[in-house]
């Protein structure tokens, strides 16, 4: 058992360990003449919850479902982004630490900045999505006779997304369409290709499409198996994906 100069045990020790990502808050501890071994405190990931929307409202779900399926459309090669659960992924991410800006510096003063200086918004990612989607809704309403994005043709949706990608779609308010698109495309790829535990990549379907076998730890026997399919079953953090029901 660990010898600590300050009495740290149970929940407090668990909290100290959760300080791994630089979130100060765990107690300071002094270790001497000991090995820092603890039982039963694995820093395991937290799975996305099941059930209803945690953050997104109905209009946002409508916009995102339509938009993500233009970024990664349905076709026989693999699932569309929404079929793979990417909108659920986005909702859970925005409702959680990422959306709350747990790893963003958000203090002022704020200035627009150059693209090389990166994200300069005062908003958390969750606020950023909310403001951007609402501003996009207004811009589209003006340009497309009061219609909403999800009801436009696929071609028109693509044209609008291209305008966001270049920043040509002008938005009211502090967020540029380009800044939104950059974050959005990144988050969509995250949802599509991350472990199914986070709500996207349902059943590992996106991995299956590209041929990624998932969360293996040992490929020793295949290192020099050149130019051939590696016949390992796909696994996720919760085990063989063929076995899981989600």
């Amino acid at each position, binding site marked *: 058992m660990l010898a600590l100069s300050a009495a740290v045990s149970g929940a407090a020790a668990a909290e*100290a*360990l*959760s*300080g*791994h990502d*630089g979130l*100060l*808050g*765990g107690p*300071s*501890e*002094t*270790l*001497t*003449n*000991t090995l820092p*071994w603890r039982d039963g*405190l*694995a820093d395991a*990931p937290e799975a996305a919850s099941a059930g209803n929307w945690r953050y997104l409202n109905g209009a946002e779900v409508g916009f995102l479902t339509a938009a993500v399926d*233009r*970024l*990664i*459309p349905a076709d026989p*090669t*693999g699932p569309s982004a929404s079929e793979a659960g990417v909108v659920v992924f986005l909702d859970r991410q925005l409702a959680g630490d990422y959306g709350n*800006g747990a*790893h*963003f*510096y*958000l203090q002022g*003063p704020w*200035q627009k900045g*150059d*693209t*090389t*200086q*990166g*994200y*300069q*918004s005062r908003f958390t990612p969750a606020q950023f999505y909310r403001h951007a989607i609402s501003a996009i809704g207004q811009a589209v309403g003006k340009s497309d006779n009061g219609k909403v994005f999800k009801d436009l043709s696929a071609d028109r949706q*693509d044209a609008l997304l291209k305008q966001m*990608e270049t920043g040509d779609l002008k938005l009211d308010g502090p967020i540029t369409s380009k800044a939104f698109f950059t974050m959005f*495309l990144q988050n*969509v*790829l*995250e949802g599509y*290709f991350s472990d199914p535990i986070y709500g996207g990549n349902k059943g590992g379907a996106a991995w299956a*499409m*590209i*041929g*990624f076998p998932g969360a*293996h*730890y*040992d*490929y020793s026997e295949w290192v020099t198996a*050149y*130019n051939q399919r*590696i016949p390992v079953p796909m696994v996720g*953090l919760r085990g063989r994906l063929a076995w899981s029901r989600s």
Partner: protein
Amino acid sequence: MAQAMPKVDVVLVGFGWTGAILAQQLCDAGLSVLALERAAARSTPVNWATTFDQDELRYMWRHHLFQNVKYSTLTFRNNIHQSALPMRHLGSFLPGTGVGGAGIHWNGQIWRWLESDFKLKSHNEARYGKQATAGLTLQDMPVSYQELEPYYDMFDKTCGTSGQAGNLSGAKQTGGNPFEAPRSAPYPTPPLPMTYGPKLFEQAAASMGLHPFPHPAGNLSQEYTNPLGMQLGKCTFCGFCEKFGCGNYSKASPQTTLIPYILTKPNFELRTESEVLKVERTPDGRHATGVTYIDSAGIEHFQPADIVALTAYQLHNVHLMLVSGIGQPYDPATGQGHVGKNYCYQTMGSVDVFFDDKLLNPFIGAGALASVIDDYNGDNFDHSGLGFIGGAYIAGMVTGARPIEMVRVPDGVPKWGLEWKHAAKKYFLRAMGLSVHGSSYPQAGNYLDLDPTYKDQFGRPMLRMTFDFPPNDLKMSQYCTDRAAEIARNMGASSVHAKPRKGPYDITHYQTTHNVGGTMMGESPADSVVNKYSQSWNVANLFVTGAGLYPQNPGYNPTGTLAALAYLTADAIKTKYVKAAGQPLVAA
């Protein structure tokens, strides 16, 4: 008022690679050593076990093991005419935090510099004339390769580095790097076997008369026990290495090679969640009395010590020097001062290589799995008429294929939509990247200082980074990336996409965590911040480790050399400084 703690012989500020090296060396010499680490203790079974380590989202994109910029960041601008703004999200570099530092989530690419890299300025001027270095504030190192060799060897033996020597005490060895400086001993373990992609690179490079060799790796090719009795296992090519911890005890890190040994020493203490705010000094400023640190309960402590060693990451060491008022800050307008001067980075180019008819299976990878050529690095080739100096190693490298980061599509394919989807499906298993790992040389306008506007959570000015790639380095990257593209075409690729580094420097996209300079070592206080033993010219009982010591960055990953310099420092403290406590080891 800060609470005073019991005095120790040595206080270490930060407990990553260099902190662990100094702790082991100085504890074994009988000194009492306390390491203050700003974040938590971490260990393999608790923090990156094989049951959950293979998680690209959490570790890479949600920065689970990296410094959290919410609490600690810096400001950035490309040049002195812009306003620097906070780095609000990590991107270009990923500093570590917590016990083990960035040594947890590094790749394990372990390099030595070329002999000429130690005399960079004088070497290039002698060969190409003074105009070759114009516009670059290059400097020679005050140590030579020969002086550092025994310490390079110590680091290799600590890590168990896997590789093939190219030069053993002057005798060239087949299969190794023919350009490397003489090593006194072979690598402790044989090179890693090559997967298909690196093999194709090796064959193509050899067919062109170049000199491919296996990349030296801290991902071990076989079981190994280091001189301290620490045991490492055989790498299983999991591909979650760079930016991840190793769940397998196969990657050399402070945790696998040093810390378990150190923690059993009665004269060692580790205090976590303890962030050092300032180095304290006697009223005349010539002597450090210890450090002030703040714990996670917000309580400030004064930790007295006879020797203070700044073993935080390069950026934080420079920041601590500046906020403690030690040495003269560099001013680009006058050229005066050295703290923060010669900030350099790494000039990274790359080439994406696509095959219609070959399955590379790039998910089988390791942090340093590559076949590499050094023909275009440093001054290994004639630069006459090229208009630049410096160079890059070119590596057919497969660190793994995490799909959020590494779905590669050929040039001209859009970034989204059906065409992207089809290309992603077609090429994920059939593409790889060549890394063009280039040098970064200093220019007068690239530096680190204190930001005039933004304050950190403790009310101190943030560190401000002013950086852009010098024209010399962009030319170098173009030239070396062109050479890499030639190799790629000889690999039988169906298409090749060359991506030389272009300016301006952009802080949002990952390049490397190889930030260097700012506390450079030199011959005298007139040219540097510390002497060859990493001892401050101003405060004789203050030592500084890390890549901040470099006056410029050669085309290699930094850790091999900064680890060797830390061993040299430890040796100087043990054998010289303790006999002359409080005295400069080099006359100013």
